[in-house]
C-alpha cells in the first residue's frame, strides 16, 4: 500500500487548468523524484497533498490518498488535519519558513506538542536536532534562525518535518539555495532518515541530476502534466518524452566536461611520516 497516492489530480486557478492529470505514488521507505521547470505545477501538486493550496487555486478533479485513506478531494481540498501526522513538507528557503523571532528549539517543540506525544518535548527536540546533524544540539536549540547558516536552518526544518514521524515527507527544492557541498550533506541526511524510519519521500527539484542521484523512481512534470514516469535508470537512460530527453542531454554533455568521475585521490605519499594519534 503506497504511502502517498495521487490519482488524476487537476488544479485550476480561475478557469485555467494549471495542473492536469497528475498521477503519482510514493511507496513507504522509497524516494520518488518530481522534476520539472518553474511553473510546471510541481509545488502546487505538493501543496495540494498537504491541503495547503493557495486561496486562488482549487482542485477540480482527482483525489489524494495517504496510507490508503482519502485525504484530499475536490470537496475537501484544504484539510489541515492531514498535516503533521501523516505528511510533512520542507521548503526551499528554510530561513523564510522559520519564524525569525522564536528560538529554533521552541519551533521544533511546537510541532512535538501539537502531536501530543509521550515524553518530554524539550528532550525529544534536542534529540531531533542532534539527529539532523547539529553539533551541540542543546545549545543550537537556543539559537535564533539568523544565527544559523542556510544549511543549519534546513537541518532545523528537517527536524520539524520528521518530528511528527510522518509517513511521507515532501521536500520541495530542499537544497536549491545551498552550497553544493552542503547540498550533498543535506541529501545524505534525508537518505539516512528515510532508511532508518521507513518514511517515504517526494523529492521535488528543477535539477534532474539531484533527483537522478537520490531517487528510485522519477516523474517528470511539464506544463502541468506528468509527461514521463518510471524507474530512475529507465528514465535517465532511455527518456521517451522530448522534454526529458532535453533535460538529460543538457546534463550529460556540457561542453568541456568529460563524463569521467573525478580521479581517485593519489595514495598517501610514503615519504610523509604517518600521522600520530592525538597529533
Amino acid at each position, binding site marked *: 500500500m503506497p504511502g502517498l497516492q495521487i490519482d488524476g489530480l487537476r488544479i485550476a486557478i480561475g478557469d485555467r487548468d494549471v495542473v492536469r492529470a497528475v498521477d503519482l505514488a510514493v511507496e513507504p521507505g522509497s524516494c520518488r523524484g518530481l522534476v520539472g521547470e518553474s511553473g510546471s505545477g510541481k509545488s502546487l501538486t505538493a501543496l495540494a497533498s498537504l491541503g495547503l493550496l493557495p486561496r486562488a487555486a482549487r482542485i477540480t478533479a482527482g483525489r489524494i490518498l495517504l496510507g490508503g485513506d482519502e485525504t484530499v478531494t475536490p470537496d475537501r481540498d484544504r484539510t489541515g488535519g492531514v498535516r503533521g501526522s501523516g505528511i510533512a513538507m520542507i521548503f526551499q528557503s528554510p530561513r523564510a519558513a522559520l519564524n525569525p523571532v522564536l528560538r529554533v528549539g521552541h519551533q521544533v517543540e511546537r510541532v512535538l506538542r501539537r502531536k501530543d506525544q509521550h515524553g518530554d518535548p524539550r528532550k525529544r527536540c534536542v534529540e531531533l536536532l542532534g539527529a539532523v546533524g547539529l553539533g551541540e544540539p542543546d545549545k543550537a536549540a537556543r539559537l535564533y534562525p539568523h544565527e544559523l547558516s542556510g544549511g*543549519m536552518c534546513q537541518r532545523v526544518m528537517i527536524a520539524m518535518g520528521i518530528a511528527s514521524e510522518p509517513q511521507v515527507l515532501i521536500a520541495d527544492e530542499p537544497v536549491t539555495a545551498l552550497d*553544493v557541498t552542503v*547540498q550533498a550533506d543535506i541529501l545524505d541526511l534525508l537518505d539516512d532518515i528515510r532508511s532508518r524510519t521507513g518514511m517515504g519521500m517526494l523529492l521535488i527539484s528543477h535539477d534532474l541530476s539531484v533527483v537522478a542521484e537520490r531517487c528510485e523512481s522519477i516523474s517528470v512534470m511539464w506544463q502541468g502534466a506528468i509527461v514521463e514516469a518510471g524507474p530512475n535508470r529507465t528514465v535517465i537512460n532511455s527518456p521517451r518524452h522530448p522534454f526529458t530527453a532535453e533535460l538529460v542531454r543538457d546534463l550529460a554533455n*556540457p561542453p*568541456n566536461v568529460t563524463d569521467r568521475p573525478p*580521479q581517485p*585521490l593519489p595514495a598517501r605519499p610514503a615519504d610523509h611520516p604517518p600521522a*600520530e594519534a592525538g597529533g
Partner: protein
Amino acid sequence: MRPLIEVHGLRKDYRRGGDMLHAVDGIDLALMPGESVGVIGESGAGKSTLARCITRLERPTSGRVFFQGVDVTDLSDRALRRFRREVQPVFQDPLTVLNPRWTVRRLIAEPLKIHGERNAERQVDEVCRDVGLASELMTRRPRDLSGGERQRVAIARAIALRPSVLVLDEPTASVDRPARRALLALLKRLQSEYGLTCLYISHDIRTIAETCGRTIVMYRGRLAEEGPTTAILNSPRHVYTQILISSIPRIDGAGAQPGRLKAGPASGQHLPDTGCLFAHRCPRALPECAAGPPVVEVAPGHRAVCVLAEPAGNHNGVTPS
C-alpha cells in the same frame, strides 16, 4: 603577451563586530586578453568581494590591481573613469541593479550618455540587437520583463561601451534553465565577437565548465587551487576541490556514494592564524597542515595549495592533464 588585468596580493578586510573578517586574503591573479577565467567556491569564499575589488567598487585593504599595466588601486573616482569604461561588472540579480522606474531604452542609454557618447540612441539599438532584446521591449520597465530579459538588459548596459573586460558575478543564478542556456550562449558569442576578457564568479560549477578555460578555486578568501578547467574538474588535487567536485550531483548516479569524502562542519571554529584554513574540516588533514601549506605545481599551470598535492610527475597512475 601582457595580462590585461593583474592582481597582486589582494586583501580586503571587513570589520565584523570586534573581529576582522579577511574576506579576500592574499589573491594573485592574471587575466590574459580574450581569456575567460572562472572563480568557484562556497558562499563566504570571497568570490564577490574579489569581483568588487577588481572592478574597484571596493578599495582593497592592501594589494594592487593593474589594468593594462597601470596601477588602478588608489585612483580617485574621477581618474577611474577610463578604467570603468573598460572593465564592466554584471551582477546576479538585475532587479537590484536596474532603476525600476526607467524604461529599457533609458537604462541602456544611461552609461553611453555618462561617457559622452554622441550617437547614444543609435548605439542602443545596435547593442539591443546584439544581446537579442526585441525592439518592442524598449518601452518596458524592469518589472515587466522576464528574468532572462532583465539580465540581457544588464549585459547590454555592460557591453554598450565596448569594454575589454567583463566581471560577471553569478550572471545566471537568477534565471531558470532555458534562460540560463540562452544567456550562456549569448555570453559565449559576445566573448568571441567583442573579443571580451571575462572573469566569471559562480557557485555553479557547470556554468564555469561551459564558459571558462581556466578556473580558480577559493576557500575562505584564499587560493585553494587553480588550473585548466578540465584539470580542476577531472583531477582536482586540493582535498577541498575534490570534495567540491564530487558533491556535484550527476545523472549517472556516480556521485552519491556512501564512501564520498565529506568536509566537517564549517561553523563555530575560529580560523587558525597560520596553516591551511580548511584543515579543521578536512577528512585527510595531517599535522603538517598547521604550518603554511605549500603551493604545489602539480602540472604546468595547475597549482594546488595543499600538503597532499604532489608535484608533477611524482605520483602513480594519475596523469596530469
